[in-house]
């Protein structure tokens, strides 16, 4: 493999990992920022506003996809690979 393509690939992988990492970190900042509100929504759901039940499900899906993609790229970047 040429040195330039290898370096290009590494920097692309680094950029993707950093972007996903930043997106994931932003999600967690928002989670802590709205922590009380989320607890409040669960209470309101218990009291009858059933539509709020969709909020935790949506949160779970978004976090899983973004953070899952980030951790996958993170370990790949660090070279953690299975034995063949």
């Amino acid at each position, binding site marked *: *493999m*040429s040195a330039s*393509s*290898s370096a290009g*690939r590494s920097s692309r992988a680094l950029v993707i990992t950093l972007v996903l990492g930043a997106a*994931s970190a932003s999600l*967690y900042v928002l*989670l*802590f920022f709205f*922590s009380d509100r*989320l*607890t409040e929504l*669960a*209470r*309101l*759901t*218990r*009291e009858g506003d*059933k539509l709020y*039940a*969709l*909020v*935790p*499900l949506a*949160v*779970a*899906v978004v*976090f*899983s*996809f973004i*953070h*899952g993609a*980030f*951790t*996958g*790229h*993170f*370990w*790949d970047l660090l070279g*953690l*690979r*299975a*034995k*063949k």
Partner: protein
Amino acid sequence: METINFIDLTWTSTLILFLVGFVGGMVSGFIGSGGAFVLTPAMMSMGVPGVVAVASNMAHKFPKALVGAHKRHKYGQVDIKLGIVMGIFAEAGVLFGKHVMVDIREAFGAAGTNLYVSAVFVVVLGIVGGFVLRDALRERRGEAAKTSQTKELTPLVRWVRSIEIPGTMLYFKSMDARVSFLILAPLGFATGLLAATIAVGGFIGVPAMMYILGLPALTASATELVIAFVMGLGGSLFYALDGFVDIRLSMIILAGSLFGIQIGAIGTTYVKDYVVKFVMAAIMLLVLVSRFFYIPGYLSELGAIETLEPGTRGWLDGIGEGALVFALLFGALMILQALYKGMQEHRLAVAAAAPALGPTPVTEGVGAQLSPVGRFERFLVASDGSEFSGAAVREAIGMATKCGAQVHVMSLVAPGVEHEALGESILKQELEMAQSHLDGIKAQADAAGVACETHLVQGNQIHEEIVDLADRVKADVIIMGRRGRRGLARLMLGHATAQVIGQAHCNVLVVPRAAQVEGRHIVLATDGSRFADTAAVTAGALARVCKTPVTVVSVTTDEQSQEVRVETARTVDRVVALMRSDGTTVEGKVLHGEPASAITGVAQESQADLIVTGSHGRTGLERVLIGSTSERILNDTQCAVLVVKAA
């Protein structure tokens, strides 16, 4: 009904949850089973009510199961029909389990559900942990259970498949058999019931599919992901509707567990199977002990036994907490130690083997060509074991026989988050399956007298791994399959194939399933660009070597000026003259209309088995990279297409 109080999130509790998630994820990735049997008790030990712990654990599992099921489906490992049927019955089990939980909570309060969850944990972990420990001891003594490895069906599976209940029979592809849905109903229901009770359904689902329905371990594990998604989504919704999901806890646990899962899953590939089972059994039995010591406290709260002295309660809870912490630390240390030791040994073994491997030999045959444009000495064929890549493998070996080329075959395994939700160590199974697939291809190549090297690659970006390996082995041509012929253009060509063509530094041969490159006739598509000139040189070299007639085609369109049309005709004449001077039988055609359909039409008329076309540069979107005409040709034609990269 007692009110539900979510725990306060402090920096300490957040950090503990993250670490618990990390270790739990690592453990679950290692033992290949849902980590909730560690996470649920850990959350309960932090003061989270049992029902909230179960609900919150379900909420972070179903999206992971969805990602996993989608990926496994692409690899053809999932029986969707079976997953959905079992998932629907599992959903009923979840609904029933959730009602039991809520009823217990209404009747006895939080202590009631805590006792219920803990008691179920003790029973289930006792049974499953005991079996796993027995298996580990047997395997260590060399008496490994062969049932899952052999293709012979057990008497139980044969009996289950022989039951005929009219009006209830369903055919399942994974079993190639018809099974009554009345058999599947209790299996699915029990899976869902357990999932709603302790957030781990795989303990029933996977073994049931393997030992009762006779599915291979990998298909059972992959199909379990569909069940996990269906029941996880439903279960999470049912619990969320009652306000039991503390999404803050779920997401913090998720943050840590996603980091841990891959360490655990990769760790399994460095140790023997029985080591994984020993660790699994040890953790299960430690968690059992932990939950067991909490039970007197809950019984005391319910008034079922004498009220415990605060000191005694603290002492018992302390043992429970200690056992859990010990289980987590023990699991983490065992995995990290196994991973470290295994990686060291692997590195030493690779270093020791390195001097024995010489540089890749250049084979005889067409060989020793100086121009990289028309060189066919090393082929790289990407195979995922599907029927689509089967054609690529077949043609690679066939062409290598004619050209005397060396064939490199690669298969890709992509580790992912779904490894958490499985009942078996799927990564290890998958690596073994991919290696055995590669070994099969190598045997085919050996039989044909073709030099062949196999490469088992791991990574998430398929196209990058292919291009990277092609560079490393200095491949002259990458040979890939193509998916079906209908639908959207991008889907037809296959995203990975399009990206490889866009980013590869060498030529790419795309082989549809039914195509056979026999050297009957070559159609060269040219538009007079420098990319097309490179394609012309390559087509010329091929035609010379294989003594194949060529038709040079160029297509003008309504938008083009008269000058352009005249220039197009000159280009065709120039290429024809060049090839003729090399002794190739060649004719030129200038057509008018839509370029891709005109070119594929010529290929069909002349019964060509290969279309050669140029490709644009190497950066940007793949559609731009390949060129829209080349992409349409790739999608429309039934014969192989060689996309020549500009030198």
